[in-house]
């Protein structure tokens, strides 16, 4: 009986611990990344930025990279709206989702674990690297050394 009670106490403790810790685990996570990544914006002509990840605190996915570019690259601008699901990009440089009917900012990535796996994905080859539409929002995207992030304007 004592053994059963102790097991019950232990399980209750684990359960309460899970319930307390898990909300924090779902908060923004800082990714410790070193190296360089490339951000490509499909303007005319195409704008390409190489980002030194050692200088960026990546705690909000691709949005952290865009914030860094906004602060350090002259002329780089972007706009977004925040929602419970994360950031929703509405404008990057001259790509403006509100300027076209049914427009949206398309995010593509070379990081395989972020690929969109649905039948609606788009693939593209950028300088020999395959980029695929992201299955995650800008705030949740994985930032990796050597990755390419391709930003375009699309319509649905």
């Amino acid at each position: 009986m004592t053994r059963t009670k102790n097991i019950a106490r232990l399980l209750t403790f684990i359960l309460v611990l899970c319930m307390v810790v898990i909300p924090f685990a779902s908060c923004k996570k800082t990714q410790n990344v070193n190296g360089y990544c490339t951000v490509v914006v499909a303007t005319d002509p195409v704008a390409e930025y190489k980002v030194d990840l050692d200088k960026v605190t990546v705690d909000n996915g691709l949005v952290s990279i865009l914030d860094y570019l906004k602060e350090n690259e002259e002329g780089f601008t972007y706009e977004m709206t925040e929602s419970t699901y994360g950031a929703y990009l509405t404008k990057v440089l001259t790509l403006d989702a509100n300027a076209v009917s049914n427009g949206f900012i398309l995010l593509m990535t070379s990081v395989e674990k972020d690929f969109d796996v649905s039948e609606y994905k788009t693939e593209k080859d950028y300088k020999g690297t395959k980029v695929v539409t992201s299955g995650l929002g800008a705030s949740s995207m994985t930032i990796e050394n050597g990755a390419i992030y391709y930003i375009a304007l699309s319509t649905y």
Partner: protein
Amino acid sequence: MVSKQSVTRGVIFRIALTGICAALIEAVKLALAFIPNVEGVTLLTALFGYCFGWTGVLSAVIFVSIEPLIYGYNTWVLSYYLYWPFVAFVFMLLGKRKVRNRVALTAVAVLLTVWFGVLTSLVDVGLFTGFLTDFWRRFRIYYLRGTWFYVVQIACNAAVFPLLFRPLSTLLGRLRAKFLPEREKIAKKELKNEKNT
């Protein structure tokens, strides 16, 4: 032979019970919604199937039918229809076989929770839409993306089931015996009453 009155009363109780069970599951889901993947739906669905049989299974179906009214329609609706009534059904079978062992019940719950992650990934990746190109590679990417969430859900159920399932099933069993006695017992009671009168 059980009287019509008793049968009618039993049916009315079961209808009411189905609604109450479905509402309870929904309430617990909403109450814990702010904690990602910590849920009491598996526990309650299993309990209701275990204790109330087909009534519990039906309450799971009703719960799943309510969900799109709150959250809208998407691929997860199909996953839910395939999964939650199945949980209730499996535990209904365990209830009929009078399985009481904590470890066995928890093991079944954990296996079902693992299956939930696999099933939802299979459905979301396109198993039922016919989009099968490069299916297993896409499934691997999608499934691994949700690993953290599956681990949390499995850990939650692995802790909750040994703790709560047996005492709650005992409680619900007593309620069932009081409000939904088996037909044989009703028949015996009515026969006894007839003899006395």
